[in-house]
């Protein structure tokens, strides 16, 4: 049978963002997939030429609308390494708390969208209802719901008071309870399993070789998580990456679900250990040199390459986001799958196209 060429996206009911794939199919089986990017390319890296290194924090936050806090954290960490700044302990803990809140809301967002991808609308609503609680936590503590703008070079801009901490822990307890109620639906339901188990298998070797990142990598059995390096306060927390070995869509769902629960636990640990003290140190001097800074985002590791030459403006800001790394594995997964499974496979890498293209 002759091949049919089918454009998938950029506008597709299942896609939250404009990913475009050209699929060559043969009798409903995908044979080949070619990506096309560029629908939301904004050239944010170029802005480094006209915004100084402090203003860039608020620009890199806008690279991604979901994991904004981690982008700023990664960027600030890089600048701090260049300046040789030691971030106060309380600030490191607060950064961790906000990062983990972001992880919860991002994973809940994904779990909802994923449920929607195989047509489970009510589950989508349930996950997003829980997510709303976390969004409220972010708004109360940081002032904004998504783009928190809490990081600055040398520390953080806001504190979390004791009453807020109490309220956060109570809300998280509620969220955890509700999340566990949904566990059997997303992980044990027969129809859900039929759509996910054994679909889009990425072997351990392939995942490593193709440079997959984050849950996509860990679901294939590679225990690599940037949080193991112990940036921010992770070195003082009890943390072990969540790994699944099957490498299929189901394994990736399990990893994300468990990471959401783990993030709740990490926030609890943070509040148990957080010391009192300064929020920020004053930066001295200007960034000079080159640095590679990496942080674990909900979708995987993000890499910042910063190059400063002792001026207010950085010479180069280069951002490699996790979805960029996860596109080659996706292209490897697609050949051989049913056309009907393509949306599910695409969603399991948690594509964030606006951050891929920046």
């Amino acid at each position: 049978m002759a091949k049919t060429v089918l454009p998938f996206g950029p506008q597709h009911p299942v896609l939250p963002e404009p990913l475009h794939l050209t699929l060559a199919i043969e009798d409903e089986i995908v044979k080949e997939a070619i990506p096309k990017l560029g629908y939301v390319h904004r050239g944010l890296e170029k802005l480094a030429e006209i915004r100084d290194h402090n203003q860039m924090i608020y620009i890199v936050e806008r690279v991604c609308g979901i994991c904004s806090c981690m982008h700023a954290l990664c960027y600030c960490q890089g600048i701090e390494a260049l300046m040789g700044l030691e971030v106060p302990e309380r600030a490191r803990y607060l950064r961790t708390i906000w990062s983990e809140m972001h992880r919860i809301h991002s994973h809940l967002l994904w779990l909802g969208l994923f449920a929607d991808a195989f047509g489970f609308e009510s589950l989508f609503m349930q996950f997003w209802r829980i997510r709303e609680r976390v969004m409220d936590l972010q708004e109360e503590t940081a002032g904004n719901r998504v783009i928190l703008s809490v990081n600055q070079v040398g520390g953080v801009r806001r504190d979390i008071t004791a009453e807020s901490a109490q309220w956060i822990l109570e809300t998280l307890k509620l969220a955890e309870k509700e999340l566990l109620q949904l566990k059997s639906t997303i992980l044990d339901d027969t129809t859900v399993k039929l759509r996910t188990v054994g679909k889009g298998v990425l072997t351990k070797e392939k995942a490593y070789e193709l440079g997959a990142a984050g849950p996509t990598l860990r679901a294939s059995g590679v225990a690599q998580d940037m949080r193991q390096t112990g940036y921010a306060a992770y070195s003082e927390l009890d943390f072990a990456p969540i790994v699944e070995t099957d490498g299929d869509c189901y394994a990736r769902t399990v990893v994300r679900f468990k990471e959401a629960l783990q993030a709740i636990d990490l926030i609890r640990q943070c509040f148990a250990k957080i010391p009192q003290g300064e929020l920020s140190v004053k930066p001295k001097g200007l960034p000079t040199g080159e640095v590679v800074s990496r942080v674990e985002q909900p979708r995987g590791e993000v890499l910042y390459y910063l190059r400063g030459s002792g001026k207010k403006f950085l010479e180069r800001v280069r951002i490699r986001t996790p979805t960029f790394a996860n596109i080659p594995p996706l292209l490897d997964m697609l050949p051989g799958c049913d056309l009907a499974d393509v949306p599910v496979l695409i969603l399991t890498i948690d594509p964030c196209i606006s951050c891929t293209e920046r």
Partner: protein
Amino acid sequence: MIDSAVVVTEENTAEIRPDEVITQSRALKDEGFRFVTMSSAELAESVCVLYHFDKDLEIRNLRVDVPKGSKIGSIATVYSCAFLVENEIKEHFGVDFDGIPLDFQGMMYNDEEVQRTPFCNIGIKRV
């Protein structure tokens, strides 16, 4: 403890010549390194391309200085996932990668009417 923000120093970065990239990256692959990504920056006369690899969370870089507008071998034969980022650098900096399996001809992000690379201001060659 491994740092997650690593200042690029001689310790973790090897300076190599443009014709060595493929052999050097193959050597790293044989050691079990994972390809992370590539970065680039404009220098006075050349474009500095950094290849980032990692193994057990530790980062290792290769630095190549490519004269502006000249050619360099694509490492997509070694690490197939490098094709996306090579396309990106080709489009933004005008570094010509030889033998990218999926070559967007400088039109991955940009439209056809874009005549100059946005970062390193030189004309784009379209085949």
